[in-house]
């Protein structure tokens, strides 16, 4: 248990470092799609909700889990959809108009 915790802290620290390095390099041009993309990725929290709803340990856990799945899934679907829609609009000079 104690080791798990320490590993988790390492993972968090390294992921935060990678996050800062990677995000810093993203052009301001794409900051809006970036935010909708990270929002969709963040909805990976759905995996926790799936376990809660599916294991059905208590009625409360199952109901809260089910609602959590709905809200996370709407973020996944909506987030990826709109990010791709936005990115499709970014065209370089000389590209044929859609």
């Amino acid at each position: 248990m104690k080791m798990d915790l320490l590993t988790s802290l390492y993972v968090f620290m390294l992921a935060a470092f990678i996050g800062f390095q990677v995000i810093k390099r993203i052009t301001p041009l794409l900051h809006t799609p970036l935010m909708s993309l990270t929002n969709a990725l963040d909805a990976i929290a759905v995996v926790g909700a799936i376990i809660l709803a599916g294991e059905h340990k208590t009625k409360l856990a199952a109901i809260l889990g089910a609602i959590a799945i709905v809200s996370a899934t709407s973020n996944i679907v909506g987030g990826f959809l709109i990010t791709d829609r936005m990115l499709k609009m970014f065209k370089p000079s000389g590209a044929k108009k859609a």
Partner: protein
Amino acid sequence: MNGILANDLLIETTYLIATALFVFSLMWMSSPTTARRGVFAGEIGMVLAIAGTLLHSGLDYTWILIPLVLGTIIGIPLGRVQMTAVPQRTALSHSFGALCVMLVGTAEFYLPREVPMTRFMMAVLCMEVILGALTITGSLMAAGKLQEWLPQRPITYKGQNFVNLGLLGVAIVVAIILVIHPERTQLFPAIVAIPLVFGVMMIVPIGGADMPTVISLLNSYAGLSAAAMGFVLNSKLLIVAGALDGASGFILSMNMSKAMNRSFSNVLFGAFGQEQTSAAGAAEAKPVRSATAEEAASILSAANKVVIVPGYGMAVAQAQHKVRELFDSLTKRGVDVKFGIHPVAGRMPGHMNVLLAEADIPYDKLLDMDEINGDFAQTDVALIIGANDVTNPAARNDPGSPIYGMPILDVDKARTVMVIKRGMGAGFAGIENPLYFLDRTLMLFGDAKGFVGNIVRELSGGSGHS
């Protein structure tokens, strides 16, 4: 190795691959040429992780599949909103993400367990729930303000900061008591309810102009609460996704507050723009030079380099398509036309770029403030459409100005400055703009869409330059 272990290994492998794909997804977002690949990588990672999770033994699928379908049905229209509505959609999705995290945290708290939670776990769980709850209502409030269902003007009262900080302080004290005495479960509803109220109170004093910072900050909170959830569930995938999202939101909010020359605490506790309103209005008598669409068209067509500076007023007037016609018409005449975009030109980071890209303006013509500022000295015409404070030279040279020190677009260095504006009213922050009284400035009074349309008509009607 028995079957159950092999199954667990398979599940963990899908999580590992998903984690790698998420990092690649963000790496590919760095350039518009690879960005769509990034979305694809993210989608594959997501599908893999969900499929892996469904492999867990003993899951009741009806409780999973029905919510998955429902969420998809809600998600599709949220993915199809208009580009001007993207900021409120984003705020709403921060709220949904936080709702998921807060609900899972609550369920975890009440789950019966053989071994009690460690103190550290309880502390992280409390953090997850507090951050989640305040992000839910805070984001809903932000979405409401952006959609203009709620008043955009900041609402302030005496002792507001005291009340807000007090609320947050009480929630934290309750959380600390819970960590020390986990058996006092009756206290738990308080660390849900108080932050829910705090979320509302936190956004009440924040004005429309500060929304880009606030959305980014809420993005960061949503990410951090998801990372906290990862600690509670011991899910490395969730920790990584949450940390990436938290880092992204943090960097964007730093950018935004730097672009507005404000500190975080100033955005959250400052309630900008309420006292300055009295300072405007005094200088109506100063003379300005104005011009007609015909005059503007002839100056523009004689120019070599034109920089268009769009602000949110352009989007409000729905003028982006007319602006693209102007861009096409000038480009055809051999004029070099670029766009200078201030970081807070839209209602969220990068929003203006999306609006212009939607109007088919090539992205290599969209330059951010740092890229374009050096060019203004060699620019013949700077054409400002619906922007005000981000072009105000007082930010550079008047220490008495409330926006002094804010980075601006140096449009006043261009040979001619044209400003399309409805009238001489002050901007969003209520601050007078000395740019309008310069000798080189021509005021083009009218509605952005109509006036740009008139210039385009003059350009196509005239004989052209040379």
